[in-house]
């Protein structure tokens, strides 16, 4: 029990008689967070998109249930919904966490149903089921039917083949009886061929038309040849029949394929969350003075329009805060659930949740142009493109297929001369025993999972070849400004000139900056504030105000000089420092030396990279002395300061010529040439620029909040993923090298060949499903239901 709210929920649950939830649940729940109000779903506009009429007053909707940890949650939700007045039907799919729900319009509202789900600590939102679910369900049902027909057919065909296997030639099995069994076997195998083998034949036919070979070619050929030979033997009454072997072979092949599809769909579902970032509608204001506005579909928004975002609602598009101040939860984008402050002028990312106060936002990008949509496209592109290694494996698989076809033909001819009766079966065994599928299918599953895993940590993979390079990287070149540092200022040193001591000067400066929102204001931190009146801001120069000691100025030397007169005393500033002066009418008071603030986790990142055996380099355009100091502080031995972009490029090139594999981490925009030169690049493109960054990986989220630890994890995930892929390749190759000669030599029967092949595929898929990274330690601050579901996958 974490708070009174939980207790209330627990009481509700127990009072309703659902203690069973606590007995059967296997994972504890997340801490509650603010959610968009459910009432928006009563809007006719939303209903048109999601709700279907099931009867005169009955309405039907498909819901995605969120925050589900285990089956007990699903059960609780179903019971809870079923007891709501007005709900006529609830069906929760335990495998997909989707619910079908029907309710009586006269007795309840959709929002009340959604609120009810929230009341017990879950979240539900409607979705449009026509998109993908129907297709997937068709596929799944088709696959099950094919599997069943093949399995059942194989078992029955075996019953009819059994007497022939037992027959010892004593005449117990008459010729007429044997012929009867053969015909029965033929009739039973026919549906297996017609129904179950459709995918193989369809794929082989496609290949034939394209004059290519694929993995299905030898399988289709083997099945067709085996069936034709057996059918011919049945018609003529001469030769052997192997209906049982063929049916069994199909069953094993389909079984392996079914498992593989299930694994892939599960991996794909993890990426599905991306598609559901956006709310479906927005509150558009007709003008700056319009208090309430009108409800419009989110994709109907255009740049420049104003929208009102109530607390708890999702931001409908990318934009800038026009009025109001609040904080936003950008965890969907960054994986970081700590709220991000949003003062006027701050950028808002579509899909994030406004937490505290109503905001008026000016839309900068809407619909398909939003960052969320762009990231979704990038990720899709990455998923569609194939890394070199995978392409190589595909080529190898094609070659292997040709080798298999040639071997099968040669074995057939050789056996035709040696033992004609066995020739077709040896050929079938050769065609079936090889498993180039392991080469073709293992890598994509692993890559999809790696992709989902990285995304959950706020790293978008934009080119899937990056995984390969990331795993091979030996050196990491880090940029300084905006990468290891935040690109914002911290007070390094205060030089005082007599009249006031340092803390008093800082307090005065803080008070002067208190009213301004200049980035420098942050440098003076939190603390006591003095009374300052009549403060004025001179953009580009500084601020002026009236404090207890009279008129005070804070800003550039020239600006203060107007007040203090005389040249500013030496402050001991280094070129890397930004110097801000404080002066009053009596003279110079202080000089503040400001320095770019180091990211809190920069030192951790460098240490973690070194622990992985990677060599960190610090290359920056800043003053060499500053760069050296920072490098020493972080424990980086290789560094170069004062580097122009060309120098950085050359530095990278030099490393590569020495045989190193370079990963470059930069801020994405200024470092573009170096990022392109490096073997793999990671950009910390703050917020809006993520989509434009020319990098292989983009660390999402506002620059200040970007978490460097994700980069270290990316190396771990990539290495693990590549290791699994290599293991799979090694296994597939070893298996084929051993199995092919054995089958050609006639040591392997058709069904044994199918079993070996299916087992080989199965091993590869299982290996691909192993976790890609150690489970993240449970931390309340970084908890979100989404990252949870990823790490449990």
């Amino acid at each position: 029990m974490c708070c009174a709210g939980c207790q209330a929920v627990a009481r509700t649950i127990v009072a309703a008689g659902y203690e069973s939830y606590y007995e059967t649940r296997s994972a504890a729940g997340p801490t509650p967070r603010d959610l968009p109000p459910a009432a928006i779903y009563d809007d006719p506009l939303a209903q048109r998109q999601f709700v279907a009429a099931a009867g005169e007053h009955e309405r039907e909707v498909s819901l995605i249930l969120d925050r589900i940890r285990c089956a007990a949650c699903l059960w609780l939700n179903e019971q809870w919904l079923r007891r709501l007045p007005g709900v006529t039907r609830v069906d929760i799919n335990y495998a997909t966490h989707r619910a079908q729900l029907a309710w009586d319009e006269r007795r309840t509202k959709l929002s009340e149903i959604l609120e009810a789900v929230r009341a017990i600590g879950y979240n539900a939102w409607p979705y449009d089921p026509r998109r993908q679910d129907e297709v997937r369900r068709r596929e799944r049902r088709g696959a099950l039917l094919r599997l069943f027909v093949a399995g059942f057919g194989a078992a029955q065909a075996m019953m009819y083949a059994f007497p022939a296997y037992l027959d010892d030639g004593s005449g117990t099995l008459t010729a007429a009886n044997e012929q009867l069994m053969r015909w029965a076997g033929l009739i039973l195998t026919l549906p297996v061929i017609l129904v179950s083998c459709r995918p193989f034949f369809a794929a082989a036919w496609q290949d034939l038309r394209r004059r290519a070979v694929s993995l299905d070619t030898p399988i289709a050929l083997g099945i067709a040849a085996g069936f034709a030979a057996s059918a011919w033997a049945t018609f003529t009454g001469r030769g052997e029949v192997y209906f049982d072997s063929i049916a069994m072979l199909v069953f094993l092949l389909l079984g392996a394929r079914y498992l593989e599809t299930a694994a892939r769909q599960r991996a794909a579902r993890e990426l599905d969350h991306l598609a559901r970032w956006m709310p479906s509608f927005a509150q558009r204001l007709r003008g700056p003075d319009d208090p309430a506005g009108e409800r419009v579909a989110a994709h109907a928004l255009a740049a420049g329009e104003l929208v009102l975002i109530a607390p708890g609602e999702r931001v409908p598009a990318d934009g800038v805060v026009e009025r109001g101040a609040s904080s936003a939860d950008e965890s969907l984008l960054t994986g970081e659930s700590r709220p991000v402050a949003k003062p006027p002028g701050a950028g808002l990312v579509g899909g994030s949740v406004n937490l505290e106060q109503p905001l008026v936002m000016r839309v900068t990008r809407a619909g398909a142009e939003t960052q969320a949509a762009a990231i979704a496209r990038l990720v899709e592109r990455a998923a569609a493109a194939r890394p070199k290694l995978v392409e190589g494996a595909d080529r190898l698989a094609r070659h292997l297929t040709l080798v298999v076809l040639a071997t099968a033909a040669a074995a057939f001819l050789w056996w035709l001369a040696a033992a004609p009766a066995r020739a077709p079966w040896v050929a079938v065994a050769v065609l079936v025993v090889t498993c180039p599928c392991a080469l073709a299918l293992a890598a994509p599953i692993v890559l999809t999972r790696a992709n989902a895993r990285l995304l959950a940590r706020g790293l978008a993979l934009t080119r899937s070849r990056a995984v390969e390079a990331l795993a091979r990287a030996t050196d990491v070149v880090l940029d300084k400004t905006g990468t290891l540092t935040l690109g914002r200022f911290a007070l390094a040193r205060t030089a005082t000139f007599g009249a006031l001591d340092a803390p008093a000067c800082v307090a005065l400066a803080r008070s002067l900056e208190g009213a301004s929102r200049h980035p420098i204001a942050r440098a003076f931190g939190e603390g006591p504030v003095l009374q300052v009146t009549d403060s004025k801001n001179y953009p580009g120069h500084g601020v002026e105000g009236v404090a207890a000691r009279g008129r005070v100025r804070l800003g550039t030397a020239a600006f203060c000089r107007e007040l203090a007169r005389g040249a500013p005393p030496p402050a001991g500033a280094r070129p890397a420092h930004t110097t801000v002066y404080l002066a009053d009418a009596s003279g110079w008071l202080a000089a503040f030396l400001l320095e770019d603030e180091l990211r809190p986790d920069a030192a951790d990142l460098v240490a973690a990279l070194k622990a992985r055996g990677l060599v960190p380099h610090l290359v920056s355009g800043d003053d060499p002395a500053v760069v050296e100091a920072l490098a020493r502080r972080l424990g980086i031995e290789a560094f170069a300061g004062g580097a122009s972009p060309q120098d950085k490029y050359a530095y990278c090139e030099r490393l590569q010529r020495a045989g190193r594999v370079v990963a470059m981490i930069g801020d994405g925009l200024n470092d573009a040439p170096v990022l392109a030169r490096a073997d793999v690049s990671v950009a910390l493109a703050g917020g809006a620029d993520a989509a434009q960054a020319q990098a292989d990986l983009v660390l999402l989220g506002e620059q200040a909040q970007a978490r460097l630890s994700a980069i270290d994890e990316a190396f771990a995930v990539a290495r693990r993923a590549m290791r699994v892929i290599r293991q799979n390749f090694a296994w597939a190759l070893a298996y084929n090298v051993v199995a092919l000669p054995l089958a050609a030599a006639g040591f392997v029967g058709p069904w044994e060949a199918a079993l070996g092949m299916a087992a080989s595929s199965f091993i590869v898929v299982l290996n691909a499903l192993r976790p890609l990274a150690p489970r993240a330690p449970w931390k309340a601050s970084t908890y979100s239901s989404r990252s949870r579901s990823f790490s449990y996958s």
Partner: protein
Amino acid sequence: MESLYILIPLSVVFVFVIGWVFWRALESGQFDDLDRPAHDILADDDRPREDEK
């Protein structure tokens, strides 16, 4: 042994009948969610719903 001439064709017919029954079950959605029945057995609730009492 003559009974085989009846029984074997009959068993073939049965296989097709069973195949058809499976197909019907599949189309009615019985196999769409295979996780659920395993959990239903742990947590069933036979009480009538509130508004039907």
